[in-house]
């Protein structure tokens, strides 16, 4: 299971950033989300997937990293 597609959909829905415009391995901040907007996005991720991200989430910089983290949390939740 990969959450990447879901995350791409969410960032498009919330900020109008097309999947093609943001390489999963590129910096999300580079796409124009500053640190506070990124926190807002992470809140939306938590709400969408019903998960709770760890506190050190500010280290996340790419959608791919975020997808890996979300995948892990969703798997734990299911188990």
């Amino acid at each position, binding site marked *: 299971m990969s959450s990447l597609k879901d995350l791409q959909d969410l960032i498009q829905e919330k*900020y*109008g*950033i097309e999947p093609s415009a943001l390489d999963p391995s590129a910096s999300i901040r580079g796409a124009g989300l500053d640190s*506070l*907007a990124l926190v*807002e996005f992470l*809140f939306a991720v938590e709400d969408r997937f019903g998960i709770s991200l760890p506190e050190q989430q500010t280290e996340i910089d790419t959608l791919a990293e975020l997808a890996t983290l979300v995948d892990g949390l969703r798997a734990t939740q299911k188990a």
Partner: protein
Amino acid sequence: MVWVTGLGLASPHGDDAPRVFAALMRGESAVRQILPELAKPTAAAPVAFDETRWFTKLQLAGVDRVSQLAVAAADLAMRDAGDGAMRSLDPERIGVYVGCGMGGAAALELAYRSTTGRVPPLTIPAFMPNAPAAHVAMRQHAQGPVFTYSVACASSAVAIAEAAKALERDEVDLAIVGGTEALLVPGVVLAWQAMQTLAGFAPGEAATACRPFSTERSGFVLGEGAAFLVLESAARAKARGARAYAELAGWGVSCDAAHLSKPEAAGQARALRTALRTAKLNPADVGYCNAHGTATKIGDVVEADALRSVWGDALGNLRVSSTKALHGHLLGAAGALEAVITVLALYQRQLPPNAHCAIPDPACGLNLVREPGTAAPGLEAALTSSFAFGGTNAALVFKRL
């Protein structure tokens, strides 16, 4: 000399200034019933606003409606001022002067009502009262003085006066000046209802609830929106061949220093006299007054007394209307919206009516503009005034060019 070279609106009657003025001339009310979920019926004049015309979804993160409206109206004012307005202009010589009474009410309300216990991390920058001015500065690349004036209902009239002074002192070459307010959310509306100053109305009669200077008046209705003007020195405007609407000829501010919410004629009269003196005009030279006219029982009589004490025998020749009957009270944006209306009245020599006033209150005794479509062929100067909770009074005088 300070000239008005651009006008921009995001107002209850729309965002096209000449069309907004035409709607006012026809006496069309933008007031209707809002927030049906509230226990007490509420009339207000909301703005039909499409924020996607001005912002991408990403840009909207942390931008409250109060700032969105300001960015739109300021942008329209700059476009109206023409391509030449920005030409060979040092960004450090552009000033932004914005009146705002309360800031981002919707952002604060959303945070308080959060059901997840989570508050959007951009709530503070969204609701701070100087956010609108900052967003206008970013959008227009204005790097000079960027100021916010929070003086309740006089906020944007004070902002306009301060911008005029900055131009006179040669601190800026161009001023983007206006006001913005967006308070039509349940928490704020309930607070206004608690203050007992809002107009009552029978079911289906929200549109005519606000009746300035009428024997039947019972208070004001809230409005939201933003209004901006571009001000330049006459020398610069002439040099670039700008179309100018009017000269901002005089301004006056004063404080009653008497009571927080009860107005006082003597304080208002001081602001009116100062504005006339700055404009080098006698009362009889001014043909039209866009009154503060909130339609409260006390306020309208006090304002009429202030006008009488300054105009004296000439009061009968001063045509007066309060357009708040039609667009509501925009609080921090009221002074700017009414300045735009006053400028257009002067430019077109047309006087918008004092609507919903079937029986003028004899205690006010003003020469009200009673009919829609009233022409004023000889109009040379016009005045608009704003009187605030807190006692601050502001008056602006415009002259025809």
